């Protein structure tokens, strides 16, 4: 058995190994793990506009809808760069994994509409964290940025987060679960929040923008890589960041422009009509020590404390703005 699979493995992995990049001729291949969400629009824009090719890079994205394989795949060497939410990244760092921020990706907006929203059933009279005590709130995953921002809102609005039961419900099923009464509230991210209000509008309502009410404009996700890879190939990641940032500029110049929505539709497959009602995040280039510290501090309040290295030491020079 092992022999057969090992042989199959060798045969299949031999292809990429057999073609090392020739300096000045072939592009350096960089495998990037992403999630099909609006947050990664700048990466796709830079790919489409040839900004990576101009830097001698060939970006090969691996899209995983759930996003569960991103960071483990980075540790295993399957990816060189991973798009992930700040909490998952920091939890890995707390466990001793050498993740380093190479670029910012997405943050909340300073004013509505924002990218996270808390929805409840109309008539359920749940308007605050206090009302949710003893009830069930859905998050796509526990212990990620969505859950953290949701719990911060529960606390801010007078509730005890320990008395609120978190139920893990994938985003696509959240609206149905809420409308059917299986949960009492849901922490939605875009485009699922606006999608739920369109499809279930007569039964669901938005009661909060959790990020705006607890830490307006706070960070959500970044691009990370491994420390050793950065030390050995720092210049490759400088090229990656330069290409990416041109994509960020392009996206920021076209917020809600049809060209941007077409781009997002192409990689996420979300219909354009739905994207027109979707709030896009803020697309930062840099990662600041202050924003990382904010997440670490908030995590400690919700049972995810621990010893972390100084935030500044986690940020590679490309993300210094």
């Amino acid at each position: 058995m092992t022999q057969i699979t090992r042989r199959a493995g060798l045969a299949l992995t031999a292809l990429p190994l057999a073609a090392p990049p020739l300096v000045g001729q072939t592009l350096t291949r960089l495998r990037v793990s992403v999630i099909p969400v609006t947050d990664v629009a700048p990466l796709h824009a830079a790919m489409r506009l040839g900004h990576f090719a101009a830097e001698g890079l060939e970006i090969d994205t691996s899209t995983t809808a759930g996003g569960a394989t991103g960071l483990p795949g980075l540790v295993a060497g399957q990816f060189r760069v991973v798009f992930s939410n700040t909490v998952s990244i920091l939890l890995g760092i707390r466990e001793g994994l050498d993740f380093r921020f190479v670029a910012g990706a997405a943050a909340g907006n300073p004013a509505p509409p924002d990218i996270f929203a808390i929805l409840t059933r109309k008539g359920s009279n749940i308007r605050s964290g206090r009302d949710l005590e003893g009830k069930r709130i859905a998050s796509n995953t526990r212990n990620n940025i969505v859950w953290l921002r949701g719990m911060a809102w529960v606390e801010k609005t007078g509730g005890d987060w320990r008395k609120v039961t978190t139920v893990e419900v994938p985003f696509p099923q959240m609206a149905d679960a809420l409308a059917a009464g299986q949960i009492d509230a849901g922490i939605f991210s875009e485009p699922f929040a606006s999608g739920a209000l369109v499809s279930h509008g007569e039964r669901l309502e938005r009661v909060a923008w959790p990020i705006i009410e607890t830490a307006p404009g706070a960070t959500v996700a970044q691009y990370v890589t491994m420390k050793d890879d950065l030390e050995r190939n720092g210049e490759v990641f400088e090229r990656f960041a330069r290409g990416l940032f041109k994509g960020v500029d392009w996206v920021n110049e076209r917020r809600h422009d049809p060209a941007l929505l077409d781009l997002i539709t192409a990689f996420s497959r979300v219909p354009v009509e739905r994207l027109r009602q979707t709030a896009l995040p803020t697309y930062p280039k840099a990662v600041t020590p202050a924003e990382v510290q904010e997440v670490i501090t908030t995590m400690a309040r919700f049972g995810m404390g621990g010893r972390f290295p100084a935030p500044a030491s986690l940020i590679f020079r490309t993300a210094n703005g």
Partner: protein
Amino acid sequence: MRALARPSSGFLLILALLLLWEVSARFDWMNSPNWPPLSVVLAALARDSLGGELPLLLGGTLWRMFAGLLAGGAAGVIVGLLFASLPVTRRLFGLTVELIRPIPIPAIIPPLVLFLGLDNTMKVTVVGLTAFFPVLTNTMQGVRAVEADALAMGRTFGIGFWRRSLHIVLPACLPYVFAGFRVALALALVVTVVAEMIAGEQGVGHYLVLMQFAGRAPEMYATVILLAVLGYGLNRGFLAFERRALHWYFALGAQRN
């Protein structure tokens, strides 16, 4: 043939269920946009099939499935023959095999990503592991069921161990091996799609999850229908192949009856 000429009651039940689907969605009994009418789903299926996207993905999925099935199945036959005919091998490896067998394969996909990556290597391995066990147990069963007379006759004629295994034992246990492969085939399709759903950007499984997250229920159900039809077709195809390959066995059965 008969089913085509005169619809059987089973066929009518399916029609009734599909009609119920269409009606329940048209009248929005489920109160959700995530339950689209069958007609809309079929339109999505036709669009993505004719557009060439689904056939391409399906081809990839089938390739991974058959590669894993053949590799794992062949290993199952070889190990099964060894275990059954050389007791020492079974004493050595039997426990290991019995310990690995009950592990739900999808549970080991995330750790396998560490060693084998996200692409074909990992998926084919996972499918191979899935196919290995049913074929192994059936092969061992088959070897036990080989008629003692046939083996004794082989020995009397002085046929050696290896030739006996190849020319008497293997053909005699082939019906069991085929039964194992049939179980493995159904599992292999399931596991291929699950592996594609969990990791990487390949095949029908990834497409299904992508459509789910894009809020495109018709495309998602179109994929589900496609997989149902594919699973049914594969099983029917396998049965036909089995009848041809084991015609002597079925002829024997007919004679006894």
